[in-house]
């Protein structure tokens, strides 16, 4: 059987209780009543058992001191993470191993070596957050449940010692109890009576605020944790050229795959002449952006779509995507994230006889899908021997390409004419024209077409509602606990004397005003504050 302590009032209290849960009598000699009031002198559950390993762990996390230490450690860690930019904020094309040292010197290197460049995703930071979560749960359970029982069991009549030791206390004579009761009720106290004694309380629900906000925090942390679980979260980026369609990554379902067409990308700048912003705009170099917008059309494939095949698309809807105005469909959302203006799209050339300057036809090369051969008629034709979308000379000084983006296109053309049936070769790039030997013909540049690209973030987040719920509950709890307080006033008839005591968990100023009002309206001696 559990050990219990029976108070002289007859109430039996759990082991470890310092103030009787019913009458408030200190159960041991050395109890300070006032400081025990925080949890009504109830036995914190962890303090009562200290046997097994599990209990030791439990007790560790039950301590507020440990909780505060965890908060402080997380706080310091979070601050360290802002000394240098995190890995996600450094340029995407650099190697972090060298970037931190070259940019920030030895300190940067140490920062990188300690793994602080990815601090918030590190295992130890997640463990810290997990321990904080554990501490919140354990500490709340350990305190919340006994506190609930204690407040429920409290009696109207309190022990003399309990009364005497309250911060606000007075002894009066000849008090009209009905008047006291009436005044307290007018102050919106809930009044209970027992044997001519009075117990008045107000705002008890505020005592649950801390526990409510802790529940909110736990829900929030759970939501944050869930995003690491597969299927809860999609985060991808989609680049689409104007006039093109692309499949939206992460949006394949049994009902088909979504596609997006970029009809137009719009970039608007503020007009420097606009009077309102004139002075601000003239003080900056360059222009200030007003709007980034993609006009798009959403399509969906048939359910039996196989990855890679030419899709049979059904239009779903049109939409406009701006910064701050994402485009939503099903559980997905597309956000305007980036853009690229004037990407090379088509290049035109003319076949020209060098000496006469005479032209023998024009060809337009689609840089994303060039043809092997362009027939210009009358025996004139041009063949593409090599195509380098993003031309560079490699280590062996060979022409090569950096990647497949047509940022710096270059070609090796073979030019055929009735006079040169074997063909003449020419290397043509942007502001480059290299020939092998003496050519009769050349490819002269005849214009370029460009296209804009838009970059959209594709996002699905099934954890959002959990996070939002957690946040809401937290706010309710915090408001409840901090904007209200639990005030109690006890009036006890002791032979011919009337004892009055008052307590609140916070805002003593407000409570003092209440008791001042009470003593003004009744014959109660003003309650005095104990030092």
């Amino acid at each position, binding site marked *: 059987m559990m050990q219990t302590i029976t108070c002289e009032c007859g109430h039996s209290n759990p082991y470890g209780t310092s103030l009787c849960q019913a009458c408030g009598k200190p159960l041991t000699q050395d109890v300070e009543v006032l400081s025990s009031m925080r949890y009504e002198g109830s036995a914190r559950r962890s303090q009562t058992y200290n046997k097994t390993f599990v209990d030791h762990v439990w007790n560790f996390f039950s301590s507020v*001191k440990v909780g505060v230490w965890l908060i402080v450690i997380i706080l310091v860690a979070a601050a360290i993470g802002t000394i240098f930019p995190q890995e996600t904020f450094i340029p995407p094309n650099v190697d972090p191993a060298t970037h931190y040292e070259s940019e920030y010197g030895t300190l940067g290197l140490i920062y990188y070596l300690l793994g602080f460049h990815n601090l918030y995703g590190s295992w130890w930071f997640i463990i810290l957050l997990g321990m904080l979560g554990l501490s919140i749960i354990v500490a709340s359970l350990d305190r919340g449940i006994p506190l609930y029982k204690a407040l429920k069991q409290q009696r109207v009549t309190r022990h003399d010692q309990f009364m005497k030791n309250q911060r606000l206390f007075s002894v009066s004579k000849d008090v009209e109890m009905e008047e006291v009761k009436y005044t307290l009720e007018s102050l919106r106290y809930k009044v209970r009576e027992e044997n001519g004694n009075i117990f008045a309380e107000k705002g008890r629900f505020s005592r649950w605020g801390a526990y409510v906000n802790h529940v909110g925090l736990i829900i929030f942390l759970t939501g944050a944790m869930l995003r690491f679980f597969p299927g809860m979260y999609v985060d991808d980026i989609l680049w689409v050229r104007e006039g093109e369609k692309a499949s939206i990554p992460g949006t394949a379902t049994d009902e088909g795959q979504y596609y997006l067409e970029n009809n137009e990308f719009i970039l608007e700048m503020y007009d420097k002449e606009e009077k309102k912003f004139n002075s601000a*705009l003239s003080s900056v170099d360059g222009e200030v952006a007003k709007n980034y917008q993609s006009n798009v059309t959403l399509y969906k494939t048939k359910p039996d779509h196989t990855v890679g095949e030419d899709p049979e698309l059904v239009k779903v809807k049109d939409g406009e995507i701006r910064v701050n105005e994402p485009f939503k469909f099903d559980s997905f959302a597309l956000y305007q994230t980036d853009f690229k203006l004037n990407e090379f799209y088509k290049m035109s050339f003319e076949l020209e006889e060098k000496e006469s300057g005479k032209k023998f036809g024009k060809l337009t090369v689609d840089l994303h899908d060039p043809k092997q051969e362009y027939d210009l008629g009358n025996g004139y034709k041009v063949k593409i021997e090599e195509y380098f979308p993003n031309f560079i000379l490699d280590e062996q000084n060979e022409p090569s390409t950096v990647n497949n983006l047509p940022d710096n296109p270059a070609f090796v053309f073979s030019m055929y004419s009735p006079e040169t049936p074997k063909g003449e070769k020419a290397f043509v790039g942007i502001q480059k024209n290299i020939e092998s030997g003496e050519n009769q013909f050349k490819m002269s540049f005849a214009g370029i077409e460009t296209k804009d690209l838009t970059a959209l973030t594709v996002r699905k987040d099934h954890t959002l509602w959990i996070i939002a719920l957690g946040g809401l509950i937290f*706010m309710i709890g915090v408001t409840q606990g901090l904007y209200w307080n639990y005030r109690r006033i006890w009036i006890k008839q002791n032979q011919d004397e009337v004892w009055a005591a008052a307590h609140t968990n*916070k805002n003593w*100023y407000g409570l003092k005003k209440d008791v001042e009002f009470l003593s003004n309206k009744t014959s109660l001696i003003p309650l005095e504050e104990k030092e």
Partner: protein
Amino acid sequence: MAEISSTLLYSAFIIYLFSTLFFAMSISDKKNKDAAHTKKWGKVGFISSCIGFVSQVGYFITRWMASGHAPVSNLFEFTTFFGMMMVLAFIILYAIYRTNGLGVFAMPVALLVIAYASMFPRDISPLIPALQSDWLKIHVTTAALGEGILAISFVSGLIYLIRTVDQSVSSKKTMWLEIILYSLISVVGFIVVSLAFKGAGYQSAFEIMNDQNQPVKIVYEMPVIAGPADGKQLDDSFGPLFSTPSWMNGVNASIKLNTFIWSLLSGVILYGLLRLILRKRISAALQTKVNMNSDLLDEISYRAVAIGFPIFTLGALIFAMIWAQQAWSRFWGWDPKEVWALITFLFYAAYLHLRLSRGWHGEKSAWLCVLGFWIITFNLIAVNLVLVGLHSYA
């Protein structure tokens, strides 16, 4: 409309100045010690701070009308608004506690904040796409109100320390108290020095390389102590005495560092002058003037945190997350400003938990409130000006 707006802000500033004086009159214990005197001047002080606040609200509304968007979109506008919220927070807490002494310290701090704000460019600037959202006004105003109320807990904590720290001997505590006062004086120094050199039209230009390795011209408006990491002075004016370390980011890093050094130096001079005049520690001189109940000060500073913390959380974290989700597709991205808002939240959460335990009321608690305000100002100033991130206005 823009002119009316600046006039209203200017008059608000002057009125705040007067209300500070009125509050100071109310606690001056030289001539009249009677309660009527205190009550009268306290009332005048309170009413004038209310009038000043109304005038500043007028500035806010007219500037909104002039620009077409809520004027919280750059450092000047935000910092001014923060000062205004401090005044509002003071008005609320004064209405509850009726303590004149609070006004003597809260109003000057708010004045300092507003004066500091006006050192930034005051042009009405257009909104970049990321800021074009209703959440701009919702998030920023709520966060600023929360911070304003938390700032009052600093003011109250500071008075508590001035009141209770033993000034008969020199100790670590008196030293830290002097450092806090010195930092406040440095803000005054910054304002004085900025105005002086601006008035004299001082300029010194450098050519430096920006991140894209292109030459850009930067112009110092104060004599150059800290030159750019690697740059060429284009004129033969004073300096530089040394170069800014190259790891400091951005083209304007050296100018910011230079301004910072000037603020500290002018702070030293002002502080030194005050010490010479007073012939004792400034906090010791103030202690003789302050005669407030320390329990009440402790209560006010705790109450300010209790009121400010939920508002701060709502504005700086919850509304911020909702907006970030909408604008940047993620509600949290560990951007430095976000992290420092979280740090502020954690700090005050720790404070509220410490208040549960014995021994953390009173003095320790007051030191914490000072530290909390340091975190808020760090987030307001350093994160925007020094650390790079999505929130760097400029």
